[in-house]
């Protein structure tokens, strides 16, 4: 009898599986890791986000903070003590070798933060990548204590008040992991599995990752906000935008990131497809390694800035979808200093600067470009070729170099690329997320996200002050000044703020593009309109 029931159950499940809704998302590249604590790219974050929740989160499509795993919180008057009340009834995913026995509680929150913050934490060393984002955000110094108040409350004390702290907690790297899972793995002697097989509280359960092929997820039946309408979510890793488009057209995927801007019109015209666009909250830039000759000379950096025909790049590679950049932050972000006069495109002046800097005979160097499409740079290689052609005019003979996205990122963060194309999409809507994370001295450490490895005391002072400045006006003023320093010191050639495109099949419902470059699959469904 019991067996019969079981069989019937199997039949039911089988029938269910047969009608499974699978959403395939053609993503641009391999995630550098599956644990959001270890990633710094939107590719990695996007792959991790379906599985996790944070204490607080950005409401979709905005930078407004709302409650997530923390039901509520209080901030002390001095702005240094945060107490979070945790949501009850939140369940963690099961894994092949783990079945959660309890609901999420303060231990999990403390574990997730302590692992990154406390270098003596048993799980701190259990990873090769380190916790770059946590560090880049200066959280190591900012946080003074992380304590469990009771099962349902956690207190975080800061060394100083920090305006964007809640926003930082909403960022993917501050996702809440299961302490119970970690303990189980540690007891079994395979703690590294914590990062290899993620267990979170998010809407989707991890179901496998094949490098260069797929990341697979299944809907989590026990998700605290309710089960998702789709049953299976797959990231189909497809670096080439032309191939992504082919797949989208074939119905092999229902969503594709970053179509070639040149194809945007064709997608918009296809009756089976929908073209989504979002003014990019990003910056694409050419990073000049300030710690490597000849780019340690500001004149060379300025010469490079003047040599490059940014307009042509925007016109040809971005197909006009975006604006030429002059500052490190997008013009839509508050504190953007529009008074900055950009460097003119003047090869002659650039040549003179080169001669002045002692490089009359030109130089030989490397220009690294990313192997994958990025929202801020649809085609790194072509941008690199265009730049190389321009630089050739001023005697800089750049060898074009690239490698795998993961290695590329590591190379840049380690500071071993003299010139490199890179970019950034704001993660939390705060200017600090650009100014400090990308250009601050903390991030200039090896492995930090400041790939120009530029550390300017005046700039750092301004940005640090801006963080603790009580009012937005004051912060804005400080950031405007910082932008002047950035312009003068020219650690980057800011190239463009792109418009981000996304192709979708008409059947996809409930998907919204996000200003912060996140792809959020919660609530996404597939209707039956897809003809293919």
């Amino acid at each position, binding site marked *: 009898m019991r067996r019969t029931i079981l069989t019937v159950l*199997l039949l039911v499940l089988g029938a269910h*599986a047969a009608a*499974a809704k699978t959403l*395939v998302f053609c993503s641009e590249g391999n995630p550098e890791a599956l644990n959001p604590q270890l990633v710094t790219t939107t590719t990695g974050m996007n792959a991790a986000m379906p599985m996790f929740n944070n204490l607080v989160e950005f409401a979709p499509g905005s930078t407004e903070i709302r409650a997530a795993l923390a039901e509520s919180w209080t901030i002390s008057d001095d702005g240094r003590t945060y107490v979070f009340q945790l949501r009850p009834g939140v369940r963690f995913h099961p894994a092949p070798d783990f079945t959660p026995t309890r609901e999420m509680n303060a231990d999990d929150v403390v574990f997730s933060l302590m692992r990154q913050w406390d270098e003596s934490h048993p799980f701190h060393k259990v990873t090769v990548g380190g916790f770059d984002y946590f560090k880049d955000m200066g959280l190591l110094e900012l946080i003074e204590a992380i304590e469990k108040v009771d099962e349902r409350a956690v207190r975080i004390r800061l060394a100083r008040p920090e305006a964007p702290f809640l926003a930082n907690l909403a960022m993917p790297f501050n996702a809440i992991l299961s302490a119970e899972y970690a303990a189980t793995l540690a007891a079994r002697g395979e703690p590294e599995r914590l990062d290899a097989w993620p267990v979170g509280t998010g809407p989707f359960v991890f179901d496998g990752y094949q490098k260069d092929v*797929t990341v697979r997820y299944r809907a989590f039946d026990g998700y605290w906000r309710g089960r998702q309408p789709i049953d299976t979510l797959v990231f189909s890793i497809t670096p080439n935008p032309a191939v992504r488009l*082919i797949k989208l057209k074939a*119905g*092999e995927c229902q969503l594709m990131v970053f179509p070639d801007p040149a194809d945007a019109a064709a997608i918009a015209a296809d009756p089976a497809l929908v073209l989504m666009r979002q003014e990019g909250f990003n910056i694409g830039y050419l990073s000049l390694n300030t710690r490597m000759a000849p780019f340690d000379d500001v004149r060379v950096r300025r010469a490079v800035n003047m040599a490059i025909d940014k307009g042509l790049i925007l016109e040809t590679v971005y197909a006009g979808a975006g604006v030429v950049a002059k500052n490190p932050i997008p013009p839509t972000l508050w504190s953007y200093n529009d008074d900055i006069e950009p460097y003119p495109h003047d090869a002659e002046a650039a040549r003179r600067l080169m001669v002045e800097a002692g490089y009359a005979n030109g130089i030989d160097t490397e220009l690294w470009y990313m192997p994958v499409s990025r929202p801020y740079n649809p085609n790194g290689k072509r941008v690199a070729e265009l730049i190389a052609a*321009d630089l050739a005019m001023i005697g800089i003979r750049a060898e074009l170099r690239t490698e795998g996205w993961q290695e590329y990122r590591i190379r840049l963060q380690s500071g071993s690329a003299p010139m490199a194309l890179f970019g950034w999409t704001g993660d939390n809507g705060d200017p600090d997320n650009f100014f400090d994370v990308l250009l601050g001295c903390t991030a200039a450490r090896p492995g930090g996200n400041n790939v120009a490895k530029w550390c300017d005391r005046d700039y750092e002072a301004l940005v640090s002050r801006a963080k603790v400045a009580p009012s937005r006006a004051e912060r804005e003023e400080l950031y405007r000044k910082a932008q002047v320093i950035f312009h003068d010191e020219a650690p980057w050639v800011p190239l463009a703020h792109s418009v981000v495109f996304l192709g979708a099949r008409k059947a996809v419902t409930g998907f919204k593009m996000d200003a912060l470059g996140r792809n959020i699959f919660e609530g996404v469904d597939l209707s039956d309109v897809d003809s293919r």
Partner: protein
Amino acid sequence: MKASPGDGAPHGPSGRGRRRGRRGMRIGYKIFLVGGFPIAIAAAIAVAAVMLLGEADRARSGAILAGAIHRNVLTAVTERDRYVDSLPGERDMHSARFAVPTERAEKDLATLRDIASDGDDAAAIGEARQALVHYVMSMGQLETVTQQNDMLIAEMAGRASRLIELTDEARQRQHDSNADIVAALSQRDRQVRDARDLVEAGYALRSALSAAGVQAIAVLAGSEAARGEAGDGLNGSLRRLRYAVAGLSSVLRVQGKGEAADELEAMAAGFGDRLMALADPSSTPLDALRAGEPGGDVEQALTQWAERLLKVYTTQYRALHDEMAELLTYSVKAHETEQATQNIAIAVLKLGDAAAGAFKSRSPEASAAVLDESRAVADAIVGLPISPLIQTDMIDAFERWREGLSTTTEGLRQQNALIAGMDAAAERMTAAARTLDQRFTESAEAIGRSIRTVLILGAAIGLVFGAGTAAIVARSIVSPLKRLQLGMLDLAGDPHRGRIEGSWKRDELGDMARATNVFVGEILRREHALRRSKDRADQALAELRRTQAELIQAEKLASLGQLVAGVAHEINTPLGIALTTSTVLDQEVSTFRQEASSGRLARASFDRFTARMEEGSRLLLANLRRAADLVHAFKQVAADQASGERRSFELSRWLEELLTSLGPMLRKGGHEVVAECPEGLEVETYPGALAQVLTNLVTNAITHGYGPGERGTITIRVRPLDGTTLRIVFADDGRGIPAENRRRVFDPFFTTGRGGGSTGLGLHIVYNLVTSTLNGRLDLESEPGHGTRFTIDLPLRVAEAVAEPAMEEIA
């Protein structure tokens, strides 16, 4: 009539006989002895035989049952095999068929257990029963397991076909996608060609530009003499530049970049003009030097323009190449994916086949092997670049398929274990059934032998004993019997002769002798008494006959009296009238005599007297005649009644006369008599008897048929039935005769009107007269409330002699 032993002593044969008689056994005992021996022996044999036969029957039926059980077990095994081997849809049928023989076997075993007497049998039966219970229970389990397996297998087939479906879907999508790839590739190809054309034309322009620049410098730097030559060279460069511009311009225009072509042509024209001026021999180099560099701004702009063009299109060219490479790679990959998917589909089909084979042969080992093999396919589904759209579905479907296979494998093991267990149980059962069959058969045979022995021995003993005893007893009975016979014959010859000897004996012969003596005495006594009572009875009978005759005579006389009374009444009227008339005539005569004597006789008076006389005599005549007629009629009737003679007469007239004489009786009650009789019907019979019959019927009808004050109609219908018979139907419409009385109305002295003075002889006389005197028949029909109907059939001619004895008897 006392019999003492002393009386018989002189007749006794001898003292020895007496002694022997006294000691002798009673015949009853002897006969009992004779019959008893064989009967007792037969009974004993019968009892033994019945018991043994019962035993034999029991054993035989036990053997039959054991045989049936054996057959049923074999049938059950066959059905079980069929059940296992048949298609899932047909299993139920075999399952139902399996139940029949097992139930029978169970019932038979239960019966057999009741039959079995022997402990060994009981043990064997117990063993078989246990095995059967186990067998049936195992069958239930087998059915459950098989059903589950069937279900799983069906489900697995569903999953496998789902997998195939998924791969087909993927292939279809890939085929559709191939067209897109081709379109994308050819678009890229066109773009590559365009870019290449532009790049080539751009390079041509750039090299023409730099050549022209070099020539221009040569012109400026050259001596007066050399200028002409250099001018020629410059002209050549100019031409080359124009070609290059024209070439690029046309490429641009072909590619729809007319604006750029215009721009190019404008710039090229300005530059050309500058160079033409230089080439002009009339101009001086100083003019040119004043103007600065040979090409000036125009040349720089043109060069930059060309550089920019080259930058854009070389990079585009490369980018397109990369894209094409990527697309081709993808196309190859997609093909590989499709191939991989198809391979998986094929692998799944093969696995499905292998699994089906394993299920069919019910080999858990083969099934487990398939499960092992399938792991590779499962890994392939996870590891191969299958379309992500279906990969998860495929993984799930295949995982479920494998789970199904694993469960089914276990199910097969269970099934096989059950089948093996069942086979063992069946073996035990058939063995037990065989043993029982054998044992029961042997037992039956042994009992049969016992019966034969018992019968033969018993019969022999019975025969010997019976015969011996019968001989002895027969002799001891027959000789005294003969003596008794002789004695009795003597006595029969003369009952008064005396007594039979041997009455002293104590046995039945003695009893018989004594009884005969008593009997003879009794006969003598009875004979005497009988004779006396016969005499008395004869006297009584004579008296009785007399009385009856008297009564009947009285009755006849009574009816005659009635007749007389009626006739007297009838006669009274005419006689009265005659008397009155004669009285009146007498007065008239005396009156006339006076007148005549007085002489005062007037004519008128004479006439009146005459008239009166005439009238008177006429009246007298008429009435007297009538009286005479009546007397005649009466005389005839009375004569008939009285004489009882037979004569011939006309019936209707006779009937009329009779009814006339009955008239007063009828009129008294106001009853009507309707008589129908054909005229001229001559009969020769006893009119007196007939009259008496009808008179009695009428009297009976009037007396008993109607209540006081009731008036009825009596119908008498006479008709000849044929030439010899006459039918008289006498019917009244009175109250009828109740059924219980109907049979008795003809009995003498039966009457319902005893109180009214009825004798109860009327209808008895009717009956006797009709059946005896008139030699006819009489039927009575009556319904209470619907009258009574007598049907009398009479011969038209009655023979003389017939009636007399009866009449005499009555008389």
